[in-house]
């Protein structure tokens, strides 16, 4: 099993993800350039990661340009064949723009970039990540200006009914309420998956919480989950 991390121009959490997976989780990692179009070395057991950052400067809309990059065509095909894909922060935005995940990420309700520790908890055990992390509150950092998840009522109902909501923002005791929501995301949604349960997107950064040096390893379980078979 190995991870592939896609580097877009403007990605800036690609190296953090590499350090987390390679140094802290002892996983094999391959860095992939967005202009390449070859994912043939990856199988269904592997996982492609779209890291955080400001791909293409986020100049049109977050993630809007990255989805047209040659590598994204391959990622879409890889995902449609059941391969595991994780998008974090800007990666989540790209997955939504590419249609691999439903909904959009809007500007934070307070209209400011926000970087701090927040708590999230797994919503359902019926997906790879949720099944692995359980429902205890995890302390994971966020860092975004446009992280307010939004979807129309019909999509939300579908997400709910299909148990596609992976994480919700909560407080340190695991209580989900308005004060534990850092950006105004609808229903405190912090992360979701697709119907096939092989494509995951989340705003918080698990790769920033995998090291003893940083005094927070709550993110390990989230990334570890992806080493398991779907």
């Amino acid at each position, binding site marked *: 099993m190995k991870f592939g991390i896609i580097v877009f*121009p*403007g990605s*800036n959490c690609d190296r953090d993800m590499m350090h987390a997976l390679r140094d802290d989780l002892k996983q094999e990692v391959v860095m992939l350039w967005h202009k390449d179009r070859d994912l043939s070395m990856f199988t269904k057991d592997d996982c492609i990661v779209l890291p955080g950052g400001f791909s*293409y*400067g986020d100049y049109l809309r977050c993630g809007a340009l990255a989805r047209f990059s040659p590598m994204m065509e391959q990622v879409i095909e890889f995902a449609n064949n059941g391969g595991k894909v994780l998008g974090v922060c800007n990666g989540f935005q790209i997955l939504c723009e590419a249609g691999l995940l439903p909904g959009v990420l809007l500007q934070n309700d307070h209209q400011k970039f926000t970087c701090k520790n927040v708590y999230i908890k797994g919503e359902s055990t019926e997906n790879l990540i949720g099944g692995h992390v359980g429902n205890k509150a995890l302390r994971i950092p966020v860092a975004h200006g446009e992280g307010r998840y939004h979807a129309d009522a019909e999509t939300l109902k579908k997400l709910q009914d299909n148990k596609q909501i992976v994480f919700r923002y909560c407080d340190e005791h695991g209580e989900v309420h308005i004060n534990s929501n850092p950006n105004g995301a609808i229903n405190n949604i912090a992360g979701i998956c697709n119907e096939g349960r092989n494509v995951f997107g989340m705003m918080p950064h698990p*790769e920033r919480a995998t090291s003893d*040096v*940083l*005094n927070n390893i709550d993110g390990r379980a989230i990334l570890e989950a992806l080493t398991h078979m779907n």
Partner: protein
Amino acid sequence: MIATLEQATKLGLREEEFEKIKEILGRTPNFTETAMYSVMWSEHCSYKNSITWLKTLPRDGDKLLVKAGEENAGLVDIGDGWGCVFKIESHNHPSAIEPFQGAATGVGGIHRDIFTMGARPIASLNSLRFGKVDNPKTKWLIKGVVKGIGHYGNCFGVPTVAGEVYYESCYQTNPLVNAMSVGVVRVGETVSATSYGEGNPVFIVGASTGKDGIGGASFASADISENSAEQLPSVQVGDPFEEKKLLEACLEMIPTGALIGMQDMGAAGITCSTSEMSAKGEHGMIIHLDKVPTRQANMKPWEMLLSESQERMLIVVKKGRESEVQTIFDKWDIHCVQIGEVTKDLNLKYYMNGELIADVPAESLVLGGGAPIYERQFTTPAYLAEINKFDINNVAQPADLKEIAYQLIQLPNIASKRWIYEQYDSMVGTGNTQTNEPSDAAIVRVHGTEKVLAMTTDCNSRYVYANPRKGAMIAVSEAARNIVCSGGLPVAITNCLNFGNPYNPEVYYQFVEAIQGMGEACRKFDTPVTGGNVSFYNQSEDGPVYPTPTIGMVGVLENINQKMSLGFKHPGDTIYMLGTNYNDINCSEYLHHIIGESHSPAPHFELEEEYVLQQTVANLISMKLVKSAHDISEGGLFACMLESAMANGLGFNMTTDANLRKDAMLFGEAQSRVVVSVNTDLCALFEAELKGLPFTKLGIVNAHKEICVDGQSWGYISDWKEAYDTALEKLLA
């Protein structure tokens, strides 16, 4: 078209400087050449009014791999084959006019200084000064500056790990925005800002050249006024995405070995980079300006030469290896265009469509070459007499200490900076260890080595105003103290010297005294000056700002286990204060902002006393005898204790000294004091290791999360924390 004296003075040159240019060239310069000299000989580029004194600062040391001023930034050895490159720079005047872009490009510019040397920036710091926080213009400035710093740093992907911000009315019209970048590089893989080898091609890489920022260096070298808004085109516009690509491309290019030299384009753009690189490499250049990619048509040659468009670099490549370099810039979709070549002739010759439009010796433009050097007059400022009149006995002791304490910790200079720092990505790079365990200096790990860096920016300018020499010593000492209290060994400093108009003898007195104090303290702590920036003319109709010589200091820890944090750890631990308490409220936040006394001497400070304190604290930390360490600074002992308590939500019991004024003990800012907590079983061993250093046993850490002073409850930590955390956002709302 030859230039007239009138044009020259309009460009900011003095009459004798214009004469000197004529002498150098043996003819009267044309307008383009005059414009080039005007920016290169501005204070910003030439240090003409400061270099004499800057040279008195200690600039040598075992750990310095590059001497001050030799490259774009300082380079120190941190061991294990790694070097640390760091520098601080001001962007005050642009930020005063256009706070968002001014601050953003300040951040972008300082990062370029770091990666132009081949280092990868891993941390940003800043030092900000604004006017009174309740002023609407101040609010506009703060919001713009913070958004600008965040916008650039967050997108560029370097965490903002530490900083300082003060609000004083002297900064009302002229705020200060100082940005610092810290990078790491393998020793031996650095790049020099040089140019040599006849026939080697010269490339411009990065963004295209526009009319933004023309004459920015001259703009920074004049007083600021209400009319400054007319100078708006002097403010540059930043594109962090372009800079991120430029960073990655440059770092990818360096290992190819195809480079001779590289320099970023900051102040004075093409003029500065071509002249400084050529002068250093003792060669000349032919430059074809018509080949420079431009943003708008019909730019005049002088506009291209002076443009301060951001995200550009000048690189000199070994002849025959152009395609290797081109391939890398193509990969990153970045302009990389040959605009000229290196010549044996020492002149810089600029052509436009085949016509020679400027022809000047490279050496004559630069600091250390032909740029003028002045010695300015100075006199003791009149206001110092008023400062010396202060007598503590005229200040009545407050009846309700708790109420004073509660007001004090909500003052904008003391309260939490959360509203600001949460807008910065402080964690990208997964190196900043402050998030989950804060300490006095930011402690940042370096991926690929066990070594850990400590870094801080410090300057209490009120102290410097009250006593420029002592105040500057305190700034260096506090920076070193912050690093020592975090478990680090101070290594070197960079400075950002923000002062008023140097032609004002009282301002120049502040400058000279501050430099001397800084030099003395740097020699004591063995922290040489690796470089920095001088920013004069920080004054408006209201007069000069407080003299603000901001210190950026870097230290090293052998590994993360040496880190010491500031938060109390366990209930029952004994709390000590190391150092001596004095009946001293001089220059304190308490005296200045609660009592309302604007003039008082600098607080107690003796360099030797400070040195002994730091040596002792370093020893106690290395012996693992303390569980927390936090230095006493603004707000005094009480604010220090509260911060240690809030970090982990613990309370404390303390008793005051009956022999001291209680306001002095709790809120005084006498220097050279540190609060530590100690496992009670180890107290005897701890006290023995103090080896005679004065100390006070203050009390204990308690589990019931309450503050108790002299047996009286002052309430719960959570309530104090709420007040402390939200004070600034309430003021800014």
